[in-house]
């Protein structure tokens, strides 16, 4: 037995009960995000018990999932950005910009078929990608802090979008609304939810299992160290901001499909909502730590709270107070449990 193994055997061994559980369950229990997930389940449980007929219905869950989908897409990109120790305030503005240019493109193309829809998707993605690249390049070249750069591009994207059209575009192809906007796979799973879920799963895999994800953590944990071992940190940061931009573009397209119109001016708090979701999910604003699963939970907690409180007919102002308080409590509980686990 080598020193290392010996050390592991005496010091690092998991407690006996955990060893008896199957690997996947153990992983779930030990995962960083497990507890905030439990908190979310707890909330759902409470609401379901209080209002089983109204809250705990397939329809209601489906609606909540749809409500969360576009923010989820943004929050996924934001997770990568925040893990690198950065921040992206421009997401909402890029969303609006992308939906404007995509709408314009589809309007110009005319037609009402899948071709037009695909064109719109491509334009939205490219528009988002463009702003993301701009963010990444300016951040790495100028070394101006991401908060300022993305605040600047926020204004620029918003202004540029409004210059293209200062009113909401309305002639979105019906096909788009019917298919993605309100369509459901097998009549059950809304395509909006499906797309968001797909993006989330791919991102979660990329972050947890690939070299790209590893470098994302490394850059956020110690950028200088990453650079010294040969990670192209600047290139990597550009990629990360590009992804965040592109996902904002996708969210813009989804919002176009859902509302069948651009929603200029309706996304000024998207950035804060996404950041909050990511942080609720346990990602550190200082970088190096975080998971996609956490961000998913972080997106759903406010959605579930709001839905649940409305169903409980809580007064709107009381609701705000309650959401604020429960939010803090949820994150606190999460930390408490995690710390307790760390103490063994």
């Amino acid at each position, binding site marked *: 037995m080598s020193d290392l193994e010996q050390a592991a055997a005496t010091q690092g061994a998991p407690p006996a009960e955990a060893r008896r559980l199957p690997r996947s369950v153990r992983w779930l229990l030990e995962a960083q995000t497990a507890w905030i997930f439990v908190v979310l389940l707890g909330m759902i449980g409470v609401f379901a018990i209080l*209002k089983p007929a*109204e*809250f705990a*219905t397939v*329809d*209601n869950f*489906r*609606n*909540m999932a*749809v*409500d969360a989908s*576009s*923010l989820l897409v943004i929050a996924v990109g934001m997770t990568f950005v925040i893990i690198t120790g950065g921040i992206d305030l421009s997401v909402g503005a890029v969303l609006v910009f992308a939906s404007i240019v995509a709408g314009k493109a589809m309007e110009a193309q005319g037609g009402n078929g899948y071709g037009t829809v695909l064109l719109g998707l491509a334009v939205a993605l490219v528009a988002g990608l463009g702003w993301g690249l701009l963010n990444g390049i300016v951040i790495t070249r100028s070394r101006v802090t991401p908060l300022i750069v993305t605040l600047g591009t926020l204004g620029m994207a918003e202004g540029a979008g*409004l210059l293209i*059209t*200062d*009113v*909401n575009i*309305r*002639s979105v192809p019906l096909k788009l609304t019917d298919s993605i906007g*309100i369509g459901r796979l097998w009549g059950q799973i809304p395509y909006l939810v499906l797309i968001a879920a797909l993006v989330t799963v791919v991102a979660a895999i990329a972050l947890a299992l690939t070299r790209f994800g590893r470098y994302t953590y490394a850059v956020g944990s110690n950028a200088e160290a990453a650079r010294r071992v040969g990670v192209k940190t600047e290139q990597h940061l550009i990629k990360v901001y590009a992804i965040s931009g592109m996902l904002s573009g996708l969210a813009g397209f989804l*919002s176009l499909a*859902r*509302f*069948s*119109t651009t*929603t*200029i*001016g*309706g*996304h*000024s*708090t998207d950035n804060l909502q996404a950041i909050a979701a990511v942080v609720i999910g346990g990602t550190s604003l200082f970088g190096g730590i975080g998971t996609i699963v956490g961000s998913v939970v972080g997106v759903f907690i406010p*959605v579930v709270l*709001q*839905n*649940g409180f*409305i*169903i*409980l*007919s809580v*007064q*709107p102002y009381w609701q705000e107070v309650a959401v604020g308080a429960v939010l803090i409590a949820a994150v606190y509980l999460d930390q408490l449990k995690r710390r307790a686990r760390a103490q063994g």
Partner: protein
Amino acid sequence: YGKSQKTYKLTLLQGVRGDEFYVSMACGAKAAAAKLGNVKLDVQGPQKFDASLQIPILNGIAARKPDVIMMAPTDTKALIAPMKQAKASGIKIIEVDTHVTNASISISKIASNNILGGRKAAVALAGLTGKQGEWFVMNVKPGISTTDQRQKGFELQSKTYSKVKYLGTRFDDDDPGKAASITSAQLAAHPKLNGIFGANLFSAEGAATGVRNAGKQKQVKIVGFDAGPAQVQQLKQGLTQALVAQKPYDIGYQAVQQAVNALTGKKVKGKIQTGLVIVTKANIKQPAVSKYLYKSKC
């Protein structure tokens, strides 16, 4: 020297920029300016309907010393001091759409009545639902005078219907996504819900999306406010069933006319009320109604 006509510098300060209501108002103003010929019109507006954002812009405009500022004050009190200041530097002021409580600042007030608009929305909803059921208002956020008044008007009128249960107001922070999710939840909580008043564009849009998500288009009627292209589109698609339209084009047009009247020494009307129109799928084609649909471009 030939007798060259003097050019008048006018500025339109909107309540919020990019909103089709104010775009149409600007269109009306531009049309009047083009017709008169000797008017140079500049349009400015804050990002949000918010006094603290509008005041710096008003100050900036005042520093440029146009002849007349036509403005939609975003608060009935907050704007008094800066408007007084602008007036003191020799600029004439016309209030459009909204006004401050101090009536002596502006030379003319041109507006439609938002409380009345809210009442009309309730009347329209009553017509659509047979004066019974459960209603609520989807609103932006408290503290905005125009939408507060619409909500108040709607509430006053709804309470006159004995078979209507008024569920109160929910706020969406001008986020259509939030409006949609609130609507979904309200539908889950109140299965008998059958009427929603969306007090502004995103509120109506989000409410419609929420209803569509829940698949309750048949049961729930939605009345929106304003008649921008997006609202009209919703109306045509059957997402909303009626719109309360103001006449912003007229407001803008009249404002420029009054401004030039004032500058050329002609008589100025101190108060002009522009009316309200209810737009439905049935009457939208009628020229008397369609001419009041808001413009997205001039």
